[in-house]
């Protein structure tokens, strides 16, 4: 019996062979060491991340999230819902919030689920939480430190939080302007956080990545440049969209601006998987486009 159990919403980008599948791998390794059991919501659907304002109002995205949450209420009774993806968490969290405060919207949502032929009713029984909240609130930094067998000593990390886990809801107990949890997570695994990283909550411009690439790349440039200016060797983030955007366009940015960026962008869970004694593969480091060599080296070393 695991120490803690959660109803898990992995989301589209975590699936095998998609952009954040390595995030998922590292989360699994991390949770195993922490004795946290993730019970996947069976047959979940997309959170509607990119349809925020498709016409027809907000109902469609609430129906989509409520469907997942209602299945979770039926199957994973009494557990909090946990998402790893920032967009999935934001979507589900917003639905929970809106339906809790609007009984008409709740009734409409449930009617749509009925109409769709699902024997489901969303009641709003479970909390919706981000994996980071589970780590820092339910387990706490002291517990997170216990399984550490390798120190990430000598690596300087810039903790890049981005938008979706920060606005409008934010991680419980953290400031919007200067959230500290990534820095603290870096510290407990023995790394050195860049305390004065000034682009922590800057938007990566992901929404324009494919339609106005020069604009989104101008954002990314600021984010990486500041990390270099503060002596960081790697960026660490809780968001799959941030991770991808900040990592994959560095070559393009180098061409456009004559920079020489080659900054690995990792997930918090990858640092923890390595610090907990996992191999590079366990930590999903083989899924990096820009390899996190220093982490790989530590992962390859035996536990002292």
């Amino acid at each position: 019996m695991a120490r803690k159990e959660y109803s898990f919403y992995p989301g589209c980008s975590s699936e095998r062979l998609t952009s954040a599948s390595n995030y998922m791998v590292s989360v699994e390794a991390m949770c195993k060491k922490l004795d946290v059991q993730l019970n996947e919501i069976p047959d979940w659907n997309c959170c509607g991340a990119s349809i925020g304002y498709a016409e027809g109002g907000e109902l469609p995205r609430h129906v989509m999230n409520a469907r997942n949450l209602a299945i979770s209420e039926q199957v994973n009774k009494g557990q909090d819902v946990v998402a790893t993806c920032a967009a999935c968490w934001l979507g589900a969290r917003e639905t929970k919030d809106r339906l809790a405060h609007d009984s008409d919207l709740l009734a409409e949502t449930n009617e749509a689920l009925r109409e769709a032929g699902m024997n489901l009713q969303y009641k709003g029984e479970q909390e919706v939480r981000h994996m980071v909240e589970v780590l820092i609130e339910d387990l706490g930094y002291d517990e997170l430190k216990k399984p550490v067998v390798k120190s990430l000593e000598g690596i300087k990390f810039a903790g890049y939080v981005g938008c979706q886990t920060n606005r409008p809801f934010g991680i419980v107990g953290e400031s919007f302007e200067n959230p500290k949890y990534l820095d603290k997570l870096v510290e407990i695994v023995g790394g050195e956080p860049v305390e004065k990283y000034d682009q922590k909550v800057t938007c990566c411009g992901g929404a324009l990545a494919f339609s106005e690439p020069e604009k989104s790349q101008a954002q990314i440039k600021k984010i990486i440049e500041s990390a270099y200016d503060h002596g960081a060797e790697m960026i660490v983030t809780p968001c799959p969209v941030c991770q991808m955007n900040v990592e994959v366009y560095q070559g393009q940015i180098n061409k456009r601006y004559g920079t020489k960026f080659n900054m690995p962008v990792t997930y918090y869970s990858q640092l923890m998987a390595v610090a907990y004694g996992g191999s590079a593969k366990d930590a999903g480091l083989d899924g990096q486009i820009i390899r996190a060599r220093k982490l790989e080296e530590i992962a390859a070393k035996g536990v002292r």
Partner: protein
Amino acid sequence: MAIHEKSLIDAERIQTSDNLVLDGVDVSGHWNTMVLPRYLTDYDTDFARQIQTFSGGENVHRCWQCGSCTNSCTVYAQNTDFNPRYWIYLTNLGLKNEILKDKDIIWTCVSCNRCTNICPKDVKPEGVMKALAHWLEEEGHTPETKSSIFDNEFLDQVYATGRIEDTRVLVNFLRKTNQSVMPPWLIEIGKRMTKYFPLTFLIHMGLHLVFKPRTKSWGRTGEVLREYVHEQKEIARKARAMPKEAVHV
């Protein structure tokens, strides 16, 4: 540019005489700069209500013009023509023609939610940007924007299968916007991936594009949502067409 909103004044209304002496005082050049007054008569007093019928625009009337949205805006920091406070002001005044001057950039909001997070009146400026962009499309002032094309592609996949496959959304989007389906950065990623991943991985990835991920019990959910959206669109259109005397906002 010390007073940035000078850019909001039409250039031809800013007048400066190179040589001017008033009461014996030489005020040549910028000392005599005057802004010619203008008289606006084309107010559409129903415009704010129209915008409120678009998803995201519901709270536009609450704005008290503190300017926090523009101050915090990610896009404004790159381009000072992107000015949410000003567009909200114009919306509430009903100055459609002024908004039309910026019709080609309104859709470029990145939804970072800095504005919505900081707004003291819960106007949800990020939503207003989307509402304005949809209004511009609906009235034919702009072609379907890239952001709408992306969202619709995303939505179509969700309706059909309950899930999305990120590579497929991207490839279809690039195709629909007449861009190369193999932009240089994607080729670069591909090259790096082939360095690390065995061939079987890439074959799997290709298969993933053919055999789409899906939610098995999705059933009629997509259809129900599609019908609902269609209905709501019609209801909103009718509400917009109603004479303004007949409605209370």
